[in-house]
């Protein structure tokens, strides 16, 4: 299968994460890119393919001094980087380029060189959602959740439990923004943002970035780092309007993307050693566990409550602390990918011993898009 012939040979985050008021958005892209190039032992002139979101691939290539023969500006929100990995694999396999740089950088907190969130009032969102007071993701991504809780018999305590376990993982990660333990009561007593969501059920807002370098598996063995192979990928989109999701209790994009990745990789769920599910909000890992097929519908909350995804559990999930506790610049997908790569390289702060397969699943917009990448540290 074509997807199996591509590997990650460089991966890095920005030098700093958190509050970085002295770097602009494109500066963060570049910092991450230079760190990933150093990781791979490459120079910008060695790169002939670029992909990015939140910034133009043209601006990125020019800023870094790259002359690409392939460029991808797919921008579908926080999972764009999962789609870039998928597209880069296809481009490399098709011979359009040999060495692809994927970057992310976002001044989510400091807003240096960043644009605002406003939607054109003539867009569908501007006409049919903005007039009702939606602002940032905490008032949109959250809209389906009461229907989901009712359909599944889940509770707000189940949402809080997701946040508590994320924090346990974060405690093992020196780069995590928040490391102090929290309880379900702490979460349920944190400030109300948008009922039923409390502050500790919502992701952080930080500055940062990350970058990946991919090349063909044939070439990958010549790089300084042990390659991390791409076994399978998936992507899909559903709707830019959260109000128009087909079903508030399941993400169609998640299901389509996840199935495609698993089919391409030719693996079973029981083969998966490590899992990342983009947790912009506490309900997303519950949707993800169900929609990717790790549990049946209605089983996700108990699966988390019984600590299957926690430290020592049989399916370690969001081992960097996730968007809820590690960091979240707005487009978190790159950080989930970085943690999957670290786990496959065996260098993660909360390393899952002996892990050979990592599934990394991202979401874009408010359930608008999804991307899934399955990695392995063993050549396929």
């Amino acid at each position, binding site marked *: 299968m074509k997807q199996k012939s591509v590997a990650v040979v460089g991966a890095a985050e920005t030098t700093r994460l958190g509050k970085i008021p002295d770097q602009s958005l494109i500066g963060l892209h570049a910092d991450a890119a230079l760190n990933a190039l150093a990781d791979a032992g490459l120079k910008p002139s060695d790169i002939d393919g670029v992909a990015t979101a939140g910034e133009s691939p043209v601006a990125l290539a020019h800023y870094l001094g790259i002359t690409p023969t392939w460029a991808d500006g797919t921008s579908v929100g926080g999972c764009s980087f999962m789609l870039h990995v998928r597209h880069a694999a296809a481009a490399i396999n098709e011979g359009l380029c040999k060495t692809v740089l994927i970057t992310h950088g976002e001044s989510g907190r400091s807003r240096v060189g960043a644009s605002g969130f406003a939607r054109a009032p003539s867009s569908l969102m501007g*006409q049919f959602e903005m007039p*009702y*007071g939606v602002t940032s993701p905490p008032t949109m991504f959250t*809209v389906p959740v009461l229907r989901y809780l009712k359909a599944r018999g889940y509770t707000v305590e189940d949402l809080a439990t997701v946040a508590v376990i994320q924090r346990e993982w974060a405690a093992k990660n020196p780069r995590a923004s928040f490391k102090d333990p929290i309880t379900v009561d702490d979460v349920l007593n944190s400030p109300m943002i948008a009922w039923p969501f409390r502050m500790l059920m919502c992701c952080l807002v930080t500055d940062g970035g990350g970058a990946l370098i991919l090349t063909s598996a044939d070439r990958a063995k010549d790089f300084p780092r042990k390659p991390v192979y791409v076994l399978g990928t998936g992507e899909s989109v559903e709707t830019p309007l959260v109000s128009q999701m087909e079903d508030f209790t399941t993400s169609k994009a998640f299901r389509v993307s996840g199935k495609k990745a698993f089919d391409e990789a030719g693996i079973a769920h029981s083969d998966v050693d490590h899992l990342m599910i983009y947790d912009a909000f506490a309900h997303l890992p519950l949707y993800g566990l169900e929609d990717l097929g790790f549990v049946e519908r209605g089983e996700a909350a108990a699966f988390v409550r019984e600590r299957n995804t926690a430290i020592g559990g049989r399916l370690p999930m969001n081992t960097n602390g996730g968007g809820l506790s590690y960091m979240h610049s707005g487009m978190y997908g790159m950080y989930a990918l970085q943690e999957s790569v670290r786990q496959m390289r065996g260098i993660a702060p909360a390393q899952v011993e002996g892990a050979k397969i990592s599934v990394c699943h991202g979401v874009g917009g408010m359930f608008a898009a999804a991307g899934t990448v399955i990695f392995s540290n063993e050549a396929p």
Partner: protein
Amino acid sequence: MSPRLLPEPTPETRHFWDGCREGELRLQRCTECEGGSYFPPRPFCPRCGSRKVEVYPASGEAILYSYVINHRPRPDMGTEPHSIAVVQLAEGPRMMTNVVGCAQTPEALQLDMPLKVTFEKQTDDITLPFFTPAKG
């Protein structure tokens, strides 16, 4: 309070906003396939792609499908917590709205409660459709 963010109709959605101004919630449906009603407006059926679609007045009846209560309202939405809701119309499609005319609390906003449309004029051109409890 700054003026509320209002929609700018496009040629494809103008009939909907004209309807709101005239006190009528207008939906569209396909006359070619069995796909039924759809929303938001567009001049073709999103299920079969046919351009043979018609605009018709909906009943204005709905149930409360899901919602949040925003405790940090946008500057143009006042200072009190308010619902951001999705209702399921009797004709099938769902739309985002605000539930008005009742307390903005989890106790008052029960999922599946029956609602009916109500219109509030914002400008000479734009009237927004809101929903209010159908009983009491």
